[in-house]
């Protein structure tokens, strides 16, 4: 079962998506007023249409692949409640730079979610790079994953988490 956590605990115990529906090509599968997660190309071409579709009760999110350039959505950030960044394998570190750019350069203040091969052992670094929610790989222990936020009590360098507003984060579900 997919699990979605933030640093305070489980955000969604049921579907692991916190109500977000991923658009995979079938628009009929997305109810009016939903929270919909779009691929970058779909968002760039049809963001107006989708905004109307989800309306004021729904929300838009974008899912970025590792090679996607976050500069392409830099001017649309206020339209986005969620940016998900895909980790096809935990060894693919491009998502850390994407997250850093979104937080540090473009000052995205919404939810930044790590999806894909998201494991306990990368969470500390992901959180420091500016991620706030983590869609854990199925086999990951929730307790171990939550402990990961405290792997280190201090660090040497500046990172993008300094731009994360923790007071705006929901506490555990």
């Amino acid at each position, binding site marked *: 079962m997919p699990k979605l956590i933030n640093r305070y605990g489980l955000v969604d115990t049921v579907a692991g998506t916190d109500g977000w529906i991923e658009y995979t090509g079938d628009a009929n599968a997305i109810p009016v007023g939903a929270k919909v997660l779009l691929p970058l190309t779909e968002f760039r071409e049809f963001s107006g249409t989708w905004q109307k579709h989800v309306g004021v009760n729904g929300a838009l999110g974008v899912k970025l692949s590792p090679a996607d350039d976050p500069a392409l959505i830099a001017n649309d950030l206020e339209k986005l409640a969620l940016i998900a960044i895909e980790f096809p394998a935990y*060894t693919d570190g*491009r998502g850390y730079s994407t997250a850093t*750019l979104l937080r540090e350069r473009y000052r995205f203040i919404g939810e930044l979610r790590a999806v894909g091969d998201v494991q306990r*052992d990368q969470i500390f670094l992901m959180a420091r790079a500016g991620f706030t929610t983590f869609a854990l790989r199925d086999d990951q222990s929730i307790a171990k994953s939550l402990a990961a936020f405290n792997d280190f009590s*201090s660090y*040497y360098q500046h990172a993008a988490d300094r731009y994360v507003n923790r007071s705006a984060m929901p506490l555990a579900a």
Partner: protein
Amino acid sequence: MYQYTAFDQRLVDERVAQFRDQTERHLAGKLSGDDFKVLRLQNGLYIQKHAPMLRVAIPYGLVNTKQVRMFAHIARKYDRDYAHFSTRQNIQFNWPELSRVPDILADLATVQMHAIQTSGNCIRNTTTDQFAGVAPDEVVNPLVWAEIIRQWSTIHPEFAYLPRKFKIAISGSAKDRAATLVHDIGLVALKNDAGQIGFRVIVGGGLGRTPIVGTAIREFLPWQHLITYLEAVLRVYNRLGRRDNKYKARIKILVKESTPAQFTEWVEAEFEATKNGASLLSQHEIDVVSARFTQPVYQSLPSDDAATVTFTAANSEFARWQRRNVHAHRVSGYAAVTLSLKRIGVPPGDITADELDRVAALADKFNQGELRVTHEQNLVFSDIEVSALPELWRELKSLGMATPNIGLIGNIIACPGGDFCDLANAVSIPVAAAIHERFESLDYQFDIGELDLNISGCINACGHHHVGHIGILGVDKHEEEWYQITIGGTQGNNAKIGKIIGPSFARAAVPDVVENLIQTYLSLRERDDERFVDVVARTGIEPFKERVYAEAN
């Protein structure tokens, strides 16, 4: 020597706890081999032929005697009574048990040592000049800057999962002893006309499968921007470096394929946005880090010591050692000394636990409790009083570390090779041993003069064969060990990649081939001080090639 604060100590302790938990989960079957692999590599642990190998970081090659005694302790308690100094100023243990590695790391942490980022696709241990701070030709002492890079790169959240490993070297002298032209990033600290410190930034050099001399993309980067500029380079690489093929994943391939001009443009655009960011360095930060370095205490001494001069005149063996293993010092009455770890019958860079203890005792007695590791796999005492040289020499002689072969053919650099390493196509150590024996005569070595002979057991080039005056590379030919020979490679300011002389040779033939190369050189040289590599530059490889293959047929 940099002194840890409680902050540094806590971070290393927490790293030990983190890795202990990861190892326990792995051993309990809760963390798969694939998922554990990168975690253990980033803690210096390889799984090799016979046993795991643990690579321990020696930041920029500087180590104190307490730490050296800890190496001896670890070699005795967890290993087979010896350790190996690598070509990246680190130390390796070849026989630890996986389940005990967390205990080794905990022992190391008690003396402020660790194995963080000594392997894996991350920023590795930053290396520097073994004579940093004491070299007469030094413009800027690189140690403080190396420490600042160490701190910045340690557990960096953005750059822990790069396309491939990433090595930074820094030099601050007229003569480059840190191989800055063949690193992912090479930094040369210098001063501008106004006396301000800055860095020449060289990117995309490297050895391995595709040897390339790096390109300078900045001639003078003001020191305040050291980290913001590194961030820009690393970010461009992390985002755009190839991840589809590990052999094309190093930054040098990105620089080459995109062209240095395009790459520079990307970096400069990125830097434009980062340069005044949070990582901009302040004088205060530099002062704080500088203040944590202990400084050697120097007496006011005359440049020459009468007794030492007399001893030199009377003892040709000592005179030879002075010529090859004793180096000029910026402070009058002091010298730096290289302890040769190139001994007949001992793999280059290997040292026993007892020897580590004896070296530590000598460093306490003669060198203010510190020593350094060189990228040529030797050790350096950096602050020896000239009057103490004869006594130190006798001590080193009894340890077998006074062979006057630094810069000569006896000072062979060799990776661990097929005897230990999984990647190797061929053995390195026995080849080094055979050449070492062939050229055992010091008279012969001195007659040949300066010569770097480097051996790698595979194309990954840990033995730096490309920049050896003579380079030897193990290749796999129908599952037999063969060796390809290059000549004319050079390290330093005018680093050059050696040229392959022709088809490879069977292992048994290698000493003869080297002998023929040397004989060719001796017959061609016009003056005694024309080095092997100078002759190759003057004549090209043809005369060498002709002779070697004529003899081989």
